[in-house]
């Protein structure tokens, strides 16, 4: 278990951490998200005793990391998958790490098997793709069979198969009772794997909530109903919903769940062609929370719009109304 309490850290004029506080609980995957520069990596480095915080404390199983005798048996971490000696083989890289924790070569072969690198174990890590290095980094993190795992951007550089593998692995590790912290700057990568999310921005925690809570907070319970019948609005209003008519037969209903709306319309014999509950995604929640915390925002909103990259969409984007 990791406890981060009031961490502050400055690099020159930049404030990297500004009171970062959260805990990583066992048995669940905690997503650690935030835009670049939010302090995610710095927090992890402080937890691992690599960077010293100016204030606050980070504890692993109740102890400062640097006081741990065999730290890899407490926390397995992957900060930078590229950090291997290019000339050393994958197996030898894990072997010296194993020796540093009083472990033997048998454990090395076990973790190589877990991450699927057995066939390339005696190849030099310098020739590995980023995806293979990520797997090697995961093998190193699993070496001490730790109760806590901390992975910084583990999906970077992985192919789709690797991403699926990584998602399944993190789920399995949490299901086995481990505390798993996974950082990402893409909320969508954490959808379906994180049970709990810590959203960081500008060195602080913006939100620390279960995924269910977070989704409930952003989804406002809107339901879109499309019906040609003119009395639809009256029926729904009579049933307790507040109805906004959006034109061309579309109604936006709040205050009634989708099931109740369907039942109400059917009971009153109102035909409808569409009934859609507005479902918030983690991405929506994240964008909502980090709106003010994005450090490097594109100056022109049109440039940040993916549609603007499309040549067909370039012309409307350049209309005087949008140009700055």
């Amino acid at each position, binding site marked *: 278990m990791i406890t981060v309490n009031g961490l502050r850290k400055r690099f020159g004029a930049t404030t990297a951490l500004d009171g970062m506080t959260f805990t990583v609980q066992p048995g669940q995957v905690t997503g650690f998200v935030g835009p670049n520069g939010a302090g995610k990596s710095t927090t992890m*480095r402080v937890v*691992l*005793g*690599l*960077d*010293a915080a100016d204030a606050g404390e980070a504890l692993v199983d109740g102890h400062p*990391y*640097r006081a*741990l005798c*065999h*730290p*890899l048996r407490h926390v397995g*971490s992957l*900060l*930078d998958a*590229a*950090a*291997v*000696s*290019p*000339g*050393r*083989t994958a197996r*030898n890289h894990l*072997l*010296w*790490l194993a*020796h*540093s*924790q*009083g472990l033997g070569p048998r454990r090395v072969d076990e973790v190589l098997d877990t991450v699927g690198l057995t066939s390339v174990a005696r190849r*030099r890590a310098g020739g590995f793709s980023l995806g293979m290095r990520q797997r090697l980094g995961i093998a*190193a993190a699993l070496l001490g069979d730790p109760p806590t795992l901390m992975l910084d951007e583990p999906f970077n550089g992985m192919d789709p198969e690797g991403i699926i593998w990584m998602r399944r692995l993190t789920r399995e590790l949490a299901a086995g009772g481990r505390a798993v912290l996974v950082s990402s700057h893409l909320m969508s990568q954490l959808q379906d794997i994180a049970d709990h999310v810590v959203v960081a921005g500008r060195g602080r925690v913006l939100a620390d909530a279960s995924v269910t809570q977070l989704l409930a907070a952003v989804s406002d319970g809107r339901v879109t109903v499309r019906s040609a019948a003119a009395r639809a609005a009256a029926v729904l209003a009579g049933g307790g919903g507040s109805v906004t008519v959006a034109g061309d037969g579309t109604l936006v209903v709040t205050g009634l769940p989708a099931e109740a709306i369907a039942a109400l319309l059917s009971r009153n014999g109102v035909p409808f062609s569409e009934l859609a509950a507005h479902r918030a995604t983690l991405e929506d929640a994240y964008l909502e929370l980090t709106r003010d915390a994005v450090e490097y925002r594109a100056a022109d909103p049109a440039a940040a719009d993916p549609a603007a990259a499309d040549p067909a969409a370039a012309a409307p984007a350049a209309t005087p109304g949008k140009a700055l």
Partner: protein
Amino acid sequence: MNTVRAEWTKLRTSLGTCALLVAMVAGTVAVSAAAAGFSDPLPGADLPRLSLTGVQLGQAVVAILAVLAVGDEYASGLAVVTFTAMPRRSRVLAAKALVVAAAVAAAAAVAVAGSVAVGRFLLPEHALAARPAIGSVLYLVLIGLLSLGIATGVRSPAAGMGVVLALLYALPIVNTAVADPAWQRRLLRIEPVSAGLAVQITGGAPAIGPWKGLGVLALWAVGALLAGAVLLERRDA
């Protein structure tokens, strides 16, 4: 103990270690052989010292080995992994110093024995002297430790090599340019190379005694390692 074992495994499985140790032995013996074979020493010349000339090349290879032992970790980012696995950083540096010293001592013993054997073969009148030989092995070990400490301080293989090679080769050149003989002698007594290599001298009036000179080099090495350890503990990894 685990730290020493881990650092030993790391050094052993590093791509360059073996090649550098072989190069060190070969280079030292070859230069010693050339010095002994091609020179025409006057009677009374310092023959044991002559047959150990190769140490002056060997020290460069030792320096490369020691600088890379720590510098490569910073160049590849592996230092972060090292200090995550072994957060007691001074202990890591001590373990590194121990394994580098052991590897260098083993190779230096072979190199020095080879040089002495070749020297004896090429210069038969040459009396065997134990102190220059043993002292040369210790000298190379201390050069390795000095280089390790410097590389830990500068955290980059290129900068580490620059500083170490300047100490080993540029400083003696500067020294020859000093006009005042009294100052020149003073400098010879405090510079790592000239003081350390006094251990090879068997005749004449050296600026500093053989063991005292080696002690000066040892102070340099200890100083560099301590400075490296302090920086290691204080800085963010």
